[in-house]
């Protein structure tokens, strides 16, 4: 199999299929390493890749791609690669409140905060 570095968005689909594709995260960088592996999985990998980055062919022994991760604008934790976010943003309608800047944990907190708002206004006077 071959990986197109420009197309790959750094998601987890291929690593979930093949054990010879490993994924790791450190200091806001996600690294995906493609080791040489059983070519019989290539068909499945091509099918599973959301970005069309995998094709059949022969490639070097092992390559590692690195992706900068998006840090949550509230808590600062990295939660997805920047390319994943771009990819998602291209598939959903443009939005005014950019929830894509928040990690899922902070999205939940934001939902809670906005829902609690009027309860707190009422209860704040008790």
């Amino acid at each position, binding site marked *: 199999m071959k990986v197109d570095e420009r197309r790959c968005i750094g998601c987890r689909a291929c690593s979930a299929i093949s054990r010879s594709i490993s994924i790791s995260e450190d200091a806001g960088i996600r690294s995906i390493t493609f080791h040489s592996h059983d070519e019989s999985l290539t068909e499945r990998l091509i099918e599973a890749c959301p970005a069309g980055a995998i094709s059949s062919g022969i490639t070097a022994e092992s390559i590692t791609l690195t992706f900068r991760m998006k840090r949550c604008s509230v808590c600062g934790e990295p939660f997805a690669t920047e390319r994943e976010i771009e990819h998602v943003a291209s598939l*959903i*309608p*443009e*939005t*005014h*409140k*950019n*929830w894509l800047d928040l990690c899922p944990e902070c*999205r939940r907190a*934001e*939902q809670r905060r*906005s*829902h609690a*708002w*009027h309860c707190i*206004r*009422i209860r704040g006077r008790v």
Partner: protein
Amino acid sequence: MKEILVRPERCVGCRSCEIACAVEHSQSRDLLKALSEMPQRRLYVEHVPEYSLAVPMLCRHCEDAPCVAVCPTGALTQDALTGVVRHNRDICIGCWTCASVCTYGVIGRDRRARVAIKCDRCPDREVPACVSACPTRALIYGEVEEVSRARRAAPALKFAQGVAASSR
């Protein structure tokens, strides 16, 4: 800031407002054709049998509107100048969070487009269609200061407290 004031004591339940609203928001802007377009409601005349009254229910464009606060995508926004709560159908994801927090129950569901639907206070008109159509002036449109009893059109919070107080 202008508001639509509802005066239920004048409402005769003729539903002219509902029809005018439907026509205004139809493609054709024609009564008969509008009906065939299966318009989605933005305004609801509710009958209250205990008091033999009809009450036109429509978005009050609350100050600090809860629907705007909870909308996760920013499809609902409030105009700083006019106070109108606008809904952007292109951004709406149909999660119904807004509908569930609305104290008046006036955010509906457009089942075809699978998004929310609510009063936009007729941006193309000087006076909203429902107000123009009301034969008894149960709906009036004017500056907040002008309509002295506009307290009834106060934000959802005050209304919620009113629910508690009046049920006592």
